[in-house]
């Protein structure tokens, strides 16, 4: 069992400010049921001094997610919007007497919901967030570059593992590991130049040849050799030979290959559509097939498993093992 502080237990067993606010002035929603946790934060703001007079939440998630939401509401009621904006995930975790490292992402979720609720109150369109918040880095958990940067800065993160613990990014299929490293390298470099981080501690991205022998490539199209894979390898990434596949007779033309892949994808699409999603072929490069997931599939934590399923079907159709990866927006463009 997790070693939760008494304060966490108290806020989990007796959550404050649960429920829905009538006519809220700001609403922030983060996470999704697929990710395993989601938070809807509602705030009431007094027009005179922009002070938060009431806050309510609804949370789907584990003990620390519920406790973090509860703590957040207690912390922001009575604060002005400007004061509330200074609340970081560290403050939430601190208020709760600390959280286990694997659970820090719960406090990050709280801070992000607050940010979203205030943006909503100020009339900043949440949809516009995509531009402001940068590209989606982790498709499995729907984590943007902006969220990563904030979590890295606020918590002085310097390793990919802690970034995953604090934001969940890279915790599923891990295909975004390289992008996380890029963001981590960039943000750490900024922090060093601002005197917020010791240079020796900063993470250095290896793909960009910072005195390394690796060739310098432009990030947009770079596909550097992936670093050592994390320990928890999924079946999808192991050298899986599809059961029952026959070795192909001879080399297959690209057209033939794509036709076979299309055919196999068509066969699995109904499964996706049943769940309100869809899948589309984007690119074929050697034995790597990029597909685009749509609808509920996009931020489904099962997307890694889904990709594994697609991978098996495609491997079966082609009679040889292939690797199926989520299409990268920047690469597809």
């Amino acid at each position, binding site marked *: 069992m997790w070693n939760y502080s008494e304060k966490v237990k108290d806020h989990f067993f007796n959550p404050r400010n649960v429920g829905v606010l009538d006519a809220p002035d700001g609403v922030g929603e983060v996470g999704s*049921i697929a990710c395993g946790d989601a938070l809807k934060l509602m705030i009431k703001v007094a027009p005179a001094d922009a002070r938060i007079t009431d806050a309510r939440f609804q949370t789907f998630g584990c003990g620390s997610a519920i406790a973090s939401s509860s703590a957040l509401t207690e912390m922001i009621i009575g604060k002005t919007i400007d004061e509330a904006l200074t609340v970081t995930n560290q403050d939430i975790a601190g208020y709760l007497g600390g959280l286990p490292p694997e659970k820090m992402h719960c406090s990050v979720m709280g801070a992000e919901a607050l940010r979203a609720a205030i943006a909503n109150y100020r009339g900043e369109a949440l949809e516009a967030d995509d531009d402001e918040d940068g590209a989606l880095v982790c498709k499995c958990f729907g984590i943007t570059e902006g969220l990563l940067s904030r979590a890295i800065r606020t918590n002085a993160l310097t390793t990919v593992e802690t970034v995953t613990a604090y934001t*969940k990014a890279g915790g599923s299929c891990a295909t975004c590991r390289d992008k996380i490293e890029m963001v981590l390298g960039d943000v750490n470099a900024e922090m060093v130049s601002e005197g917020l981080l010791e240079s020796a501690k900063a993470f250095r991205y290896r793909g960009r040849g910072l005195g390394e022998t690796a060739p310098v490539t432009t990030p947009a199209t770079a596909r550097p050799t992936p670093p050592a894979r994390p320990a928890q390898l999924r079946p999808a990434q192991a*050298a899986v030979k599809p059961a029952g596949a026959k070795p192909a007779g001879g080399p297959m033309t690209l057209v033939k290959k794509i036709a076979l892949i299309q055919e196999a994808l068509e066969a699995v699409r109904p499964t996706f559509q049943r769940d309100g999603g869809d899948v589309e072929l984007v690119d074929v490069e050697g034995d790597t097939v990029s597909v685009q997931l749509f609808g509920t599939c996009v931020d489904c934590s099962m997307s890694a498993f889904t990709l594994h399923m697609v991978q098996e079907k495609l491997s079966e159709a082609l009679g040889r093992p292939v690797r199926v990866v989520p299409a990268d927006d920047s690469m597809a463009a």
Partner: protein
Amino acid sequence: MQPAIYLDNNATTRVDPEVVSAMLPFFTEHFGNASSMHGFGTAAGAGLARARTQVQALLGAAHDHEVVFTSGGSESNATAILAALAASPERREIVTSAVEHPAVLALCQYLAKQEGYELHIIPVDDKGRLDLDAYRAALSERVAVVSIMWANNETGTIFPVEHLAVMAKALDIPFHTDAVQMVGKSTLSLADSAIDLLSLSGHKLHAPKGIGALYVKRGTRFRPLIRGGHQERGRRAGTENIPGIVGLGRAAELALAGLADENTRVRGLRDRLEQGLLARIEHCFVTGDVENRLPNTANIAFEFIEGEAILLLLNREGVAASSGSACTSGSLEPSHVMRAMGIPYTAAHGATRFSLSRETTEADIDRVIEVLPGIIARLRGLSPYWNAAEGTAKSFEPAYA
């Protein structure tokens, strides 16, 4: 707080007091090394020999020397798989399933990655049933070992392992099964089966942790994992854990005697629990192959809520259960078993396992049926998804006057 109602017996069981009393003399009285020539050694050796026949009886094995004592399930699994690979170095493929315990799955993935073995991971359907066509297709003379679990630890789903072993035997492939959840819950007759290697674990059947056994059918080609001594006929070196072995022997004897109870009374309690919960809680369902599973296991997926929160609230009511949710495991995803079955994410996060034992009482079950509906309702009350879901459900259910 110590929960009073323990429904997590697939994780581990309470050591039976009779097992403890069988073990005690072997700590302070018969503490000798079974290999020694003197009287201390003789007493230890006698305990070892008796335990071997006790385990043999539970397995329905033809010979007592087919039982090799190990430190537990994980060692047995590793020994079996690595022994089979070492015995056929020219064969470079391994067949296993998508829902194995990590002790098998992680080892196979390691072997694929580090040693270049080709891995066939046989999928399961939405009820957790093995894809037999895929299994058949994966078998060939290139396969060094098949390792498929007998019963799944999360859902209790039983695979047709005896049939799978016959299929493997036809191609002369060694067949291993991780049976740690199966042994002690069903009558076994390994003497009449084509199973070559079988793992069992003491602490799943009311013996202590740190003791287990590997069944090695007579004539099976074998290479020891741990070398050095002549113990276990050279198949597992190291001074025997005599108290543990004696405990496992006694536990095997008790399990054999309790098989009827397990399959009648315990099964009845499990069904009562399931039916009681399904009747009182909406939007939940049983995962796994309901028709074909262990008598003690119920895995129920509660939609729109998260497993860890359920467990924390159950624990406060004195009930111990477990969950396949991401948060309880410390990973970020629901269990690989739930994902392999394609359980929708709306439910996979709320999958909760209740695993009973012969010590479970009717009062235990009734208590869970009493408290759980309130816990589920409470968490759904917190969930931003619940109102919408309720609305959806209502719109599909016409109201009758």
